[in-house]
């Protein structure tokens, strides 16, 4: 495409983008910066841009929170939800994509529809159910409910990936004596690796960032970072600096993951209709 664009237009476009970057990133930079500010500088007005960095806020995080336990909870919930969703979601997507029956597309749309149900509709009855069978307060309860939404997302997204694969290679493998499962495991699965990576990223992100489900299904010993972060607000002895330091652990892993795997992240956002 040979469109001549004037230098002035490019400068204006880039200046506008830089302005947008400032608007969208400033609050996050502020959140990160308050963790290193001494208590008296956090809310000094007009704001202090130059300050001597301190790590005392991180000391406070370790003093008031069992950080290892919080991270463990977040990790177990995020990885557990992702593993369960992929384990049952990916084979289902493959079966739907390869089946010639008319109703399979309908089933795929059913999963897309499940993805849109507001969590509160399932959360209240699920809460009572977990209470009755004694799983309330465990990681299992959170993982199970998270996995319904995530697994629906995985089925829908992987369905579109598997459908765009040509059948010929799998058919060749089948005539060579490969089993149906072998064709899935050795031929189809390696070809949709980008989709698998994107799905894993999203399952982990949903579960790690979610507040509502773990807030009501966990107890003090099993709560993840997101829940601890909000409940810390307003507690005696907890300053904004401490909150900023704690927020480091809840936000930075996911932000970094999304930046490093940006290609897959963008694919997931545009293709998965999440």
């Amino acid at each position, binding site marked *: 495409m040979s469109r001549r664009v004037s230098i002035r237009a490019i400068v204006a476009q880039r200046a506008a983008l830089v302005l*947008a970057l400032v608007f*969208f990133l400033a609050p996050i930079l502020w959140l990160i910066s308050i963790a290193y500010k001494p208590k008296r500088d956090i809310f000094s007005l007009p704001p202090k841009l130059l300050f001597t960095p301190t790590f005392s806020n991180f000391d406070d995080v370790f003093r008031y929170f069992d950080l290892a336990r919080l991270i463990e909870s977040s990790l177990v919930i995020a990885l557990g939800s992702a593993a369960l969703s992929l384990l049952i979601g990916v084979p289902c997507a493959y079966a739907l994509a390869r089946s010639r029956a008319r109703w399979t597309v309908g089933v795929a749309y059913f999963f897309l529809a499940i993805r849109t149900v507001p969590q509160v509709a399932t959360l*209240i*009855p699920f809460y009572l159910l977990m209470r009755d069978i004694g799983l309330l307060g465990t990681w299992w309860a959170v993982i199970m409910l998270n*996995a319904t939404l995530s697994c629906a997302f995985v089925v829908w997204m992987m369905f579109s990936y598997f459908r765009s694969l040509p059948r010929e290679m799998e058919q060749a493998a089948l005539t060579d004596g490969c089993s149906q499962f072998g064709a899935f495991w050795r031929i189809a699965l390696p070809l949709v690796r980008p989709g698998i990576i994107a799905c894993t990223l999203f399952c982990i992100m949903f579960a790690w960032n979610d507040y509502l489900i773990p807030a009501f299904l966990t107890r003090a010993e099993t709560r993840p970072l997101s829940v601890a972060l*909000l409940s810390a607000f307003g507690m005696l002895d907890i300053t904004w600096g401490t909150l900023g330091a704690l*927020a480091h652990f809840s*936000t930075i892993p996911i932000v970094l993951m*999304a930046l490093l795997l940006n290609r897959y992240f963008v694919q997931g956002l545009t293709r998965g209709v999440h």
Partner: protein
Amino acid sequence: MGAPALVYVLIVAGWPLAQGIWYSVFDYSLLHPATRHFVGFENYRALWTDESARRSVVTTVEFTVAAVGLEFVFGMALALLLWRDGRFERICLALLLIPVTVTPVAVGLVFRALLAPEFGMIGYYAAEWGLSIPRGFLGDPNTALATIVIIDTWEWTPLMALILLAGLKALPSEMLEAAEVDGANAWQRFRVVIFPMILPAVFLGLVLRTMDAFRVFDIVFATSNGGPADATNVLMFYAVKQGLQFFNVGFAAAVANSMVVFIAIFAVILILLVRRADRSAIAT
């Protein structure tokens, strides 16, 4: 191979949904479980007759329309700015998507601190410029909802921009060149050529964001907690509060089910859109 996932979703999502429908026709409070009795559609009727419930419906609709509207306008502008396919644009896009990945309750806390009347940075400069609100933007019933709208816009505009950008990138370049050769100016090109051709992406973005905005919860919970004076008491918040704090399970289930019905309407529109996009993808 599809059976495990289907069975799992039917049990773990389907069973609670069915239970929710069952609960919603009872006057059922966990605090007085013995007095549970059948009331038919009374809980649903209360959504319209009860003052606070009706107000919550109105607040949710206002929030959704305002937030999605703003996100669309800013998202469109951002998408057009990011359209040129260069290194600079790609890096900008990656960085602009960061708000989407930040824990929503952390977002709520950040804005709560920035907007605080006595010590927040935004609150401070607003007062310097003569825009002084004694209880802060989140503390005043007149500005609280608008403030939540802006926080939501901050968080989700990048996603809207990305969806629209995907639409822009799929446009055939010959068409745009033809319009340019014909001497159409930038606004005419956008209005007559570009916008009509990315309509599927526009609808997709609007429907997706409407469904999500309608069930907003985390940022409300972390900033205004439904207040002040119920000014930000959106439906999702209302249902959670009724069900899991006041333990009015029957009524909460009715609120939640009404939300399911409303979102289902949008889900059907979404599915029709996706199917149409599928068909045109096969046709080309």
